């Protein structure tokens, strides 16, 4: 009985001790880009900081900063744009593509 109590207590301590280590460090990695162990600096949304309200399909220069070389729309995890602005940006880019201000697929 004495042996059972001494062997059970260290066994209960180690499973309790281990989750606290990776449990604290875990949210630090997937909090930024998924798959990295250390913290990547948080990119800020360009539209939120500069307080740009209207993203029009007409200002091609602004939109071109968010379009890749082949004409594809850059995902927001690379540009740091927030969700609302990414959705508006996507709508503007698709309108601009329809009116031949931006290409659908470039650099054949």
């Amino acid at each position: 009985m004495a042996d059972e109590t001494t062997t059970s207590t260290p066994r209960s301590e180690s499973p309790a001790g281990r989750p606290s280590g990776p449990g604290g460090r875990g949210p630090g990695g997937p909090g930024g880009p998924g798959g990295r162990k250390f913290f990547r600096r948080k990119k800020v949304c360009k539209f939120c900081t500069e307080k740009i309200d209207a993203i029009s399909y007409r200002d091609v220069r602004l939109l071109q900063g968010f379009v890749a070389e082949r004409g594809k729309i850059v995902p927001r995890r690379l540009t740091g744009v927030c969700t609302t602005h990414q959705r508006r940006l996507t709508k503007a880019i698709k309108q601009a593509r329809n009116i031949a201000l931006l290409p659908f697929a470039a650099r054949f």
Partner: protein
Amino acid sequence: MQRFYEVMFIVRPDVADEDLDKLITGLEQTVTHGGGTLRSTEKLGRRKLAYLVRKFGEGNYVLLTIDANGSLIAELERRLRVSEPVIKFITVRMDEEEKRLAKVKAIRASRKKLSAIPAEAPEPAAPAAPAPASAAPESATPASA
């Protein structure tokens, strides 16, 4: 109910200037006869197209901003579709966007006015409308104490 629209269309590059003007005046008259108001007409000039449209690499861009109802827009689009010099067009509805922008601007103007009042203790611009109401008694209590 008048809604605010932006109509942008591309005219083929080999039309003469006076033909282009004639086309634009014709469309403007369609708008005014149909009961709409024309806010502005902008000729954005000749631009290189991002891809070939009807074998053209360049086009004359024209932008019309109008206040109209839905049936007038349908008529205008039908005219643009059948007119031979127009190779592409897009109609974007802007009245909701305008309302949203006006609301944001109004919020920003009201915030700036409140922070400009020198009577209260210097406090950074309040993030929302309820905050200034709560900030006033908050700043008053340390002043009284």
